[in-house]
């Protein structure tokens, strides 16, 4: 437990999310009772309130729902301009992210990649997906 990337990060509900992130795998919760996907995680399904929520590997494909290019150097560790985006995963839920390795606009298809962080698990970011 002394490795750098074992520094505690996240709350207990999201331990499976960050464990998967350490292996650069994006997981989101799926309800085995009603099929609904949700992100972030909860102890039960918000749609049908069943306990039978499990973390499943996501397709890692998303559509840009909204995007902004940040022009001011006020966030630690970020050099403007950089893109902050809200993406809609193929499974349905939306998540906050950055668009890296190119530009994207609303409606564009993007795919997950990972940004390493010093001392913390990698975070999912997205890049333009030119494949069909």
């Amino acid at each position, binding site marked *: 437990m002394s490795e750098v990337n074992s520094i505690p990060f996240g709350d207990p509900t999201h331990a499976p999310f960050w464990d998967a992130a350490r292996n650069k795998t994006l997981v989101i919760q799926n309800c085995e009772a009603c099929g609904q996907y949700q992100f972030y995680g909860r102890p039960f399904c918000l749609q049908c309130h069943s306990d039978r929520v499990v973390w499943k590997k996501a397709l890692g494909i998303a559509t840009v729902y*909204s995007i*902004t290019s*940040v*022009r001011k150097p006020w966030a630690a560790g970020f050099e403007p301009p*950089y893109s*902050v985006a809200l993406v809609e995963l193929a499974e349905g839920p939306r998540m*906050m992210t950055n668009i890296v390795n190119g530009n994207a606009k609303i409606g564009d298809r993007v795919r997950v990649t990972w*940004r390493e962080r010093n001392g913390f698990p990698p975070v999912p970011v997205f890049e333009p997906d030119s494949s069909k």
Partner: protein
Amino acid sequence: MHKPIYIAGVAETALGKVENQSELSMAALAAREALAEAGMTLRDVDALFTNYMPEVGADLGSVRVGEYLGIHPKYSECSDLGGAAFEFFVHHALVALAEGRCECALIVYASRQRSRRNRPRAFNADSYSLTGQFEQPYGLLMPISQYALMAARHMHEYGTTAEQFARVAVSARKWAALNPKAWARAPLTVDQVLASDPMSDPLRQLDCCLVTDGGGAVVVTNAARARNAAKKPIRVLGVGESQGAFHVSQARDLTTTPGAVSAREAFAMSGITVRDVDVFEPYDNFTSTVISQLEDVGFCKKGEGGAFVAEGHTEPGGSLPTSTMGGGLSYCHPGALGLLLLVEAVRQLRNEAGARQVPDAEVAVAHGIGGPAFATSATVVLGRD
């Protein structure tokens, strides 16, 4: 019909850059002035509502302010609901007054965020929190980027343009030119807004509200006590509130704020409609949110807010005088603007607004949004008796 409840006194604190007072002394002076308008003193205050005074301390804020004022209210609230908190407070005060739990509710607030330069620009969230895990790692400018994501989506869905956003700033500046207390009064053009510094696309510097010191006080009371007011009491015709999401990813819709619900609730209570409104005081923290608020309250259809502003309706002489003191964009934005929306609405209805007075104003709406715009909203419909 609910028991009649009134705003019987209002006051602004010193505004702009306030270096010779503390937030507490500013709040105390505004409280005394608003209570004098209501024909009361601090000794009459039995309900206290406050929040967002960074010098005072975030915890137990109403206790700290009550202590400073030397009062011991039997109804106390310092809810954290964003800049709209003061419209929520009118709602909560109305319920408490109507139930007879109190008779004189003081809502008071002051901030010296400009002088103290203590406004946060980015998150500093616990890595255990949802914000720390799922928003902070992406470098949002808080709250500009959240609002930028809303503005970008509004442009995408409805064809709203940067020029239309800029018209909101130009409209507010035209009103500010008529208000000697406004911070920014020099003429402003659409081209100047479009040429201002990019912040988080599509929002530019002049799409963003001011960062100033300021605050104010509002006294809410029942009909019996309002009869003794020194100035004309203004009736609270309707109030409504609603909440959405804190995190952008959880917002159901980025182009509709909870104001659609809070306004519907407030107008249902009031028995009047948006067609009866003479003055609109939205929470103009960004130009883009005014467009969403015009739509959500129902002055135009969803998606038509940009065109509504571009047609000049919100400007002096327009069909819907909006942000008549110059708003957060040009008059004052002390971190939580909601209280000053109430002050201006009351002054318009009392015919006290000087060069910016809207002729024959009988109904005014103070409409607050808070947090990121999809987070909270509360609407107060006010009318002359």
